[in-house]
């Protein structure tokens, strides 16, 4: 493995540090993300394109490195989002469950503290999230949910760019006594 590969991929899955957070962080940060999505677009419409609950799900799943925890975190954040939408409960829930699982699984292979990896994963999971939501809407509900690949590509870039400062800010909330 060359140097670059060594930086991006972890040679052994458990060598990376498992980040720990206070329980209040797990409660307040997703709530703040959902609140942001509900409230801020009232004044700046373009903020509606930011999928902060998704970024928070991805971050905690990546940092937790436990697929089971990622599954439950994604499901809960998704269900809260569903509760605030007019769709049946479970649409965002299922999609974010998958995102949480895959993000936590990937964190065991990649060095998720690397900004480049975070950027790529942010873009990937945003696109995955939008695409899978569209598939579910079409397949399970038969609803004409629009999906524009180009638009979602651009939004994916935007969200991945925003994910860097967001993840950096969330890094500051890590508990000091991290497990090694």
């Amino acid at each position, binding site marked *: 493995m060359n140097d670059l590969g060594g930086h991006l991929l972890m040679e052994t899955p458990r060598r990376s540090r498992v980040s720990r957070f206070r329980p209040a962080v797990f409660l307040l940060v997703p709530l703040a993300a959902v609140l942001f999505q509900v409230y801020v677009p009232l004044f700046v419409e373009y903020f509606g394109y930011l999928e902060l609950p998704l970024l928070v799900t991805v971050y905690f799943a990546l940092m937790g490195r436990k697929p089971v925890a990622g*599954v439950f975190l994604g499901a809960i954040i998704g269900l809260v989002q569903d509760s605030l939408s007019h769709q049946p409960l479970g649409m965002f829930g299922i999609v974010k469950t998958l995102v949480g699982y895959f993000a936590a699984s990937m964190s065991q292979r990649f060095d998720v503290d690397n900004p480049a990896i975070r950027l790529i994963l942010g873009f990937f999971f945003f696109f995955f999230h939008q695409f899978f939501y569209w598939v579910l809407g079409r397949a399970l509900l038969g609803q004409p949910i629009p999906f524009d690949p180009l638009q979602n590509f651009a939004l994916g870039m935007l969200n991945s760019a925003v994910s860097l400062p967001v993840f950096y800010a969330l890094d500051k909330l890590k508990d000091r006594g991290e497990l090694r």
Partner: protein
Amino acid sequence: MDFILNRYRNISVLLAVILAQLVLLAYQVKGNNDVRLIRVWAVTAVTPLARVLEGFRSSTFGFLKDYVVLVDTRAENARLVEELGRLRMENQYLKTELATADRAQALAAFEKRSPSKTIAARIIGTGTGANSKMVFVDRGTTSGVQKGMAVVTPDGIVGKVLASYPTAAQVLLITDPTFAAGVVSEKNRVPGVLKGLGRGACSVEYVEIEEKVEAGEWYYTSGDDRVFPKGLPVGRASVVRTGKLFKEIFIVPSGFQRGLEEVLVVIEGVHQPLPEGQVAAEGSYAMPPPPDEQQSAGGSGQRSDMATDADRVRRQYQRIGEAQGHQFGGPGVPNFNVRPPQQKPPAPAPAAGSPAQTPAPAAPKPAGDSQQQAAPSRP
């Protein structure tokens, strides 16, 4: 067994959680049920925070504006340049205040004028999801807001209450693709179904191609959907064109034209008469006879032998052949590009009252069947 559980623990949990949510989805979709408890928890957790944020924002902005104005007042005596700036800023601020007062006044006036019983509400949040066309208002079941109530502004309809919670209510905007309401056109009372398009405009569907609808025409609620009282303005038709099965009509909603901050929830709706619009086409219109027929008939009332287009084409080719001395059936081809000499029509018979000579009535303005662009004026 333990080995298998441990080996496949992650994927088992994932499948179990997804399966549980699929069951939850199926329960809601199949039986049209709603898992209200979870929604109440989420809304009750989020909307009070949104309300606090909104209160904090409005008071902070108010304080900042007052403070900036105060600083400018002090600087007024020192520098005349800042005097100009301050006055301009104050002017802008007053304009904003005036607009706010106008909006509130319009809302209050509409509330008094409207026979329906309404309650004013403030928008405190939007729905989740990038394409969401849904908002939260700060009135819920404690204020008497119930599911299915209409939400309007003095300018038009805005949406309907999708769910009502103790502290807030969820409003589906008319621009949402899942929204539908009964509407009727202003002039010819053509009914249709208003549907959202997921963007700024809406469409009116299921309008027969034969119906007369003009671009620029206003649409009103028909009251058929039992959500919106009859007679509320919906918007103006921006585009009217003929589709495959039905007309394609696009509406610019009028309810959002002053922004969406305060709305009225219709607690008890009362149907209103539709405004009297100018009827597009009354009476009948007799088209003049085709020119060839006029020429051949000569206005004498005799029936023409040029009954079809094929007859006229044949006659035209005969004239071309005669003009060039060509014998049809013989060798060669005449030049069909040469215009044949026109035959003089026979003199009209003196008999009066011939239907062909009766001047046709003035044609009314044709109805907008083809694609038309709306005039910008509001009726």
